[in-house]
C-alpha cells in the first residue's frame, strides 16, 4: 500500500467534517473521492496535502508518517479547484516555481530546471505557451498548467480538487481522457475529488464514496454500480425508481408479480429501488399501472416517463428496437422491474 488513511476525524468549530475515515491507495492507483458537497471530500484532500491537520487518526505514505511532515515537506502535488496559478508569473515560471524555491543544495541547476519545464510543457502540449501569463490562457489550458506545475516537483502523490469543475462539458471530456493518459504515463499515485459520479466512474481505478463525512462504500466502478451497498450509493450513481414490496427469500412480491432482489434488508415490508434499464413496459401487465408521460431518445436508448395513478413518476430505458418504441404519450402501460435492490 502506498497511502494508508486510518480512522481520520476532523471537525471544525461547529461541525464534524470527517468521522473515522479509513481507506488505502495502492501504488500507481487512480483513486476518486466521490460525494455531494459537504460530504467532506475536499477536507480529506486537504488533510492529505497537509493544508489542514486531522483531530485524530493517522495518515501514512510508503511507511512514513505523513502527519509529521508539513505541506512543504510532503512533496505532494496538488491541483487546486481554482488552479491557483501565480498570476504575475509566466506559465514557465509557474511550472518552475516548486524547483526554484528549493534550498540551495537541493535546487537543480538553471539548465536542469529549464529542461524540466520544457519537458512538462510538451507533456501538456503547450510548448509555445511558456512565456504567456495565466490570464492569457483558456480554462482548459490553465488546468493543464496547474497540473504541470504540480508534476514539476516529481510528487510522490498527486492530489486533484475537482479538476474539471470549472470547465465546460466538451473540454471536460477531452481533459478527462488526457489526464488518465498522463497518469498512466507518469505512474504517480493520484487521488482526485469530484461530485460528478460519471467522472469518477469513468476515470478512477477505485472510487471512495463519501457522505456526511463518512465512507459509504469503496470499490471499483463496476462493483459500485452492480453491488451498491447503501441506498445512498445507489441513488448517487444513477437514477433510482422507488417502490414498496414484501421481501422474502431473495424475492420481492408486489401487487400480482414478484422480482428477484439484491438485498441487505431483513424479510418483510421493504422499500426497493430499481434502475431505468432494469425494467420492462408492456400494455398488458403485470406491473405498476400508469400512463406514458413522454417518450424521448436518450442516446442509444429510449427513455420513457410513466406516471402511476398515485402520482409517482418512473423513468425507464429500453432499446430503440423494443416494443417500447411503439408507445406514445398518453398510452396506458404497466412498468415491471426485472431486478430490484433492497437496502437495510
Amino acid at each position, binding site marked *: 500500500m502506498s497511502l494508508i488513511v486510518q480512522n481520520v476525524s476532523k471537525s471544525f468549530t461547529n461541525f464534524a467534517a470527517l468521522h473515522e475515515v479509513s481507506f488505502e491507495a495502492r501504488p500507481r492507483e487512480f483513486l476518486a473521492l466521490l460525494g455531494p458537497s459537504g460530504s467532506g471530500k475536499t477536507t480529506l484532500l486537504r488533510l492529505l*496535502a*497537509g*493544508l489542514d491537520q486531522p483531530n485524530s487518526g493517522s495518515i501514512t505514505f510508503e511507511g512514513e508518517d505523513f502527519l509529521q511532515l*508539513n*505541506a*512543504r*515537506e*510532503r*512533496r*505532494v*502535488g*496538488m491541483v*487546486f*479547484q*481554482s488552479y*491557483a*496559478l*501565480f*498570476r*504575475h*508569473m509566466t506559465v514557465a515560471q509557474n511550472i518552475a*516555481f*516548486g524547483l526554484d*524555491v*528549493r534550498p540551495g543544495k537541493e535546487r537543480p541547476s538553471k539548465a536542469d530546471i529549464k529542461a524540466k519545464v520544457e519537458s512538462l510543457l510538451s507533456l501538456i502540449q503547450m510548448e509555445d505557451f511558456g512565456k*504567456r*501569463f*495565466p*490570464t*492569457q490562457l483558456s480554462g482548459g489550458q490553465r488546468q493543464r498548467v*496547474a497540473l504541470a*506545475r*504540480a508534476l*514539476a*516537483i516529481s510528487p510522490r502523490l498527486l492530489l486533484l480538487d475537482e479538476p474539471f469543475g470549472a470547465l465546460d462539458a466538451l473540454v471536460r471530456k477531452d481533459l478527462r481522457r488526457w489526464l488518465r493518459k498522463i497518469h498512466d504515463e507518469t505512474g504517480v499515485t493520484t487521488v482526485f475529488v469530484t461530485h460528478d459520479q460519471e467522472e469518477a466512474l469513468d476515470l478512477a481505478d477505485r472510487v471512495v464514496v463519501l457522505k456526511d463525512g463518512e465512507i459509504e462504500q469503496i470499490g471499483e466502478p463496476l462493483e459500485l454500480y452492480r453491488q451498491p451497498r447503501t441506498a445512498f450509493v445507489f441513488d448517487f450513481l444513477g437514477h433510482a425508481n422507488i417502490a414498496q414490496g414484501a421481501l422474502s427469500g431473495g424475492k420481492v412480491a408486489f401487487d400480482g408479480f414478484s422480482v428477484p432482489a439484491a438485498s441487505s434488508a431483513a424479510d418483510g415490508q421493504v422499500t426497493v429501488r430499481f434502475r431505468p434499464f432494469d425494467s420492462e413496459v408492456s400494455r398488458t401487465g403485470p406491473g405498476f399501472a400508469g400512463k406514458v408521460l413522454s417518450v424521448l431518445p436518450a442516446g442509444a436508448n429510449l427513455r420513457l416517463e410513466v406516471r402511476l395513478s398515485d402520482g409517482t413518476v418512473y423513468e425507464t430505458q429500453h432499446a430503440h428496437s423494443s416494443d417500447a418504441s411503439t408507445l406514445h404519450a398518453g398510452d396506458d402501460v404497466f412498468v415491471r422491474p426485472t431486478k430490484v435492490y433492497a437496502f437495510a
Partner: protein
Amino acid sequence: MTSSATPARAPVPEGFKPPKASLHTRVLPGFKWSLGVTLTYLSLIVLIPLAALAARPWEHGLQGFLFNLTDGRVLSALRLSFSVAAAAAFLNLFIGLAIAWVLTRYEFPGKRLMDALVDLPFALPTAVAGIALTALYAPNGWIGSLLTPLGIKVAYTPLGIFIALVFVGLPFIVRSVQPVLAEFDAEVEEAARTLGATPIQTAIRVILPGLTPALISGFSLSLARAVGEYGSVIFIAGNKQNVTEIAPLLIIIKLQEFDYAGAASVALIMLMMSFGVLIVLNMIQLWISSRGQGAAK
C-alpha cells in the same frame, strides 16, 4: 400617477421597440442635465481657476518664469518638499504594508480599534496634527525631550517635516494594500506551500508581487499628498529659509509679498513635477498589472 385597476395607457404604437439595457441607447433620463451640472461645476471650480494658475507665471515672459524657478530659495524649497515627501512615502511603504498585513492576517484583541485608528490622519485636521506633533517633538516636548540629550533634533529640522509627512501619508498605503491582501486567494498561497515554498518565500515571491500595483498606487497617493501638505508641516518645520521652508509655504510667502506671478510659478512647477511623477508611477503600475491581467483573452 395613481394606480388604477386598468392602466389607462396608450396602445403601443407601431414600430415600437422596447428599450434595451444598454448604456448607448440612453434609456435612463437625465443625461444632459447631469452632464451639464458636472461640466459647469468642474469648469467653475477646477478648470477656470487652474487656467488662471497656468496663465499667471508668464507675466514677465518665459524669462520671468525661469527667473522665478532658478531662484535658489525656490529650488531648495522644491528639493526639500519632494525629497522629504518621497522619503516619507518610502518609509510608509514598509510600515503600511506591515500594518495592512497584521490587520488582514491576524486576529487579536483591539484589532478593530487599530483598523479604525489608521484613518485618523485622514480625519484629523492638519493644523491639529501640526501643533500636536510640534508639542511632541519640540525640544521640551514629550519625545523631543528624550531625544535632545542624544543630540537628535526633530522639530524645526527636515526630520520634523519627515515625521509629519509619515503621519499624513500612512493611511494611503494601508488602505491601498489592505483590500488586495484581504482578497488574496488562499489557494494560491496553499499552492506555493505544497510546491515546497517556505512562508518567507511565499510572502516574497507569491504574495508581494501581487501587491505591487496596490503598493505603487498607495505610494503615489501618499507622495502626492505629502508634496502638497501644508498644515501639519509648517508648525514643526520652523520654516527657516533654504533649510526647512517647504514649497507650499513659499507660495504663501510670495503671495504675502504680492508676487502673484512668483507664487503661481512655484505652484505650476510643483504641479508639473507632481503630475510627472504620478504619470511615471501610473505607467509602471499599468505595465505591471498588464502582465498579470493580459490583454489577450
